[in-house]
C-alpha cells in the first residue's frame, strides 16, 4: 500500500495562488492548526476559502483557525456563515479588502454535501424571503439565466435553490487516523470535516494520533480512508 504520510513541509506542493480551499472546524474547533500554518508559510495568496465561520481574532477566547490566513491577507473570498467573533474579518469585509459571501450554516453544510455527493444542488426553505436570495449568481436553469438564487414553489411551499460547492483542496483535523486514512473525530471537532472529505479534489488530514490499519473498528470510522489522500502525522 502506498504511504499517505505527508511531511508538513511538503504541503506547499499542493498549493497555488487563487485556489479554493475548504477548511474543517466550527469556531476553530476542528480546524487543523499545522495545516493552516503550512498554508501561510507557503506564501500562497488570493485564496477562496469555504468553511463554517472566521473563528476567533482574540486568541484568549479560542483558536484562530482560518483567521490566521485572513489576518495575513491571503484570502480573497470567503464563503461562510459567521464572522462575528473575528474583528479583522469584519474589518476586511467592510473595507472591501476581502469578499464575504454569507450563507446560512445549514445551507453551507448541504451545499458541500451536494458537491461531494454528485448532486445538482440543494432546495432549502432556509433563507426564503431574506437577503440570502440576493447573493449574486451566474446560473442557467433550463436555459434561463439567473443572477440571484431562484425560489421554486413546490407543492405550495417555497424553497431556495443553492448551488453545490466543491474545492481544489480540503484540510481536515482528526483525533485519530489509521495509516490508510480512516478518520475518527472527537465530539464537536467533527462538524464539517466529514462532508468536506467528499467535496475536494485533494484531501489532507492532520491527525493527533496515528494507528496501524485494522486498529479502528470499521463501525467507528467516521470518514472512509479512500477519501483521504494524505495524512500529516503528529510532530
Amino acid at each position: 500500500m502506498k504511504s499517505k504520510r505527508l511531511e508538513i513541509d511538503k504541503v506547499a506542493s499542493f498549493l497555488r495562488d487563487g485556489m479554493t480551499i475548504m477548511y474543517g472546524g466550527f469556531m476553530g474547533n476542528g480546524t487543523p492548526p499545522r495545516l493552516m500554518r503550512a498554508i501561510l508559510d507557503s506564501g500562497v495568496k488570493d485564496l477562496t476559502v469555504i468553511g463554517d465561520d472566521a473563528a476567533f481574532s482574540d486568541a484568549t477566547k479560542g483558536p484562530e483557525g482560518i483567521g490566521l490566513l485572513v489576518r495575513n491577507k491571503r484570502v480573497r473570498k470567503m464563503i461562510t456563515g459567521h464572522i462575528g467573533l473575528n474583528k479583522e474579518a469584519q474589518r476586511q469585509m467592510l473595507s472591501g479588502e476581502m469578499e464575504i459571501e454569507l450563507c446560512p450554516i445549514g445551507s453551507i453544510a448541504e451545499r458541500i454535501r451536494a458537491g461531494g455527493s454528485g448532486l445538482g444542488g440543494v432546495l432549502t426553505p432556509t433563507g426564503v424571503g431574506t437577503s440570502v436570495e440576493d447573493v449574486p449568481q451566474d446560473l442557467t436553469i433550463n436555459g434561463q439565466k439567473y443572477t440571484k438564487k431562484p425560489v421554486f414553489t413546490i407543492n405550495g411551499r417555497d424553497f431556495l435553490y443553492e448551488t453545490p460547492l466543491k474545492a481544489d483542496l480540503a484540510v481536515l483535523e482528526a483525533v485519530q487516523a489509521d495509516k490508510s486514512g480512516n478518520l475518527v473525530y472527537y465530539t464537536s471537532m467533527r462538524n464539517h470535516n466529514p462532508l468536506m472529505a467528499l467535496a475536494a479534489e485533494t484531501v489532507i488530514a492532520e491527525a493527533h494520533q496515528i494507528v496501524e490499519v485494522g486498529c479502528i473498528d470499521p463501525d467507528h470510522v467516521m470518514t472512509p480512508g479512500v477519501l483521504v489522500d494524505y495524512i500529516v502525522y503528529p510532530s
Partner: protein
Amino acid sequence: MSEQISAKEFIARRIALELNDGDVVNLGIGLPTLVANYLPPGVTLMLQSENGFLGIGPVPQEITPIGQPRVVNAGGAPCSIIPGGSTFDTSISFALMRGGHLDACVLGGLQVDENADLANWMVPGKNVPGMGGAMDLAVGAKKVIVAMEHTNKGEKKILKKCNLPLTAKGRVSTVVTELALFRFHDGKLVLEEYAPGVSVEDIRAGTEAAFIVSDKLKEMEISRVGL
C-alpha cells in the same frame, strides 16, 4: 414586573415555563441561554449545540487548553456532553433543525412583526456578524420562541413590518418580553399575558403591531427557581 430581577431574567424565567420535560431544544446565545437556569424541578431538556451534538452539559471543572481535543459549544466556549448525549456532523445537526426535529428554539430578537416575521441577525452599517444557524433554526423548529426586551431605548420592536433584514418569514410562534407574552394564532398576533403591574394600554403604547387581546388574558407567571 418584580423589582428584584432584571428584564432579561424575567423573560428567561417566563420562557422556562414554556418548555416541557424531555423537549429537544436549541437555546440561542445571550438571553436565551439563561432559560436553562430557571427550568422547574422535573423538567430536563435535551439541549442541542448546532456545531454537532445533543446534550449540552456544564462547563468542565478543568478546561482543556486550546489546541487539545476538546468539546465546545456553538459559540466556541468549552462545555461538556451529558450522559445520553450524541455527536454528529454539521449536516445532521442542521437536519435536526430544518427537518422539524426540535420541539422548540429560543432566539433573541431585534424585531418581530404582525406577519410573524423575525429580524435578529444584522443591523446594516453597524454589525454584520453573519446569520450563523439562526435562519435554519427559525425555519425548522416546531416552536420558535423569541426572547427580547419590549423596546430598544424607546424604539419599538414589535412592528407592523420589520425594517431590518429578515431571519425568517412567518415563523415566529411566541414572543416573550418583560411586559407581555404574545402568540400567533392562525397568522394573527394575540396578546395572552401581561406582566404584573402592566396594563394593556401600556403594552399598546410600546407596540406598533396591531394585536388581538385574548379573551383568556391573564397575568404572566414566571419560574420561581432560586427566588
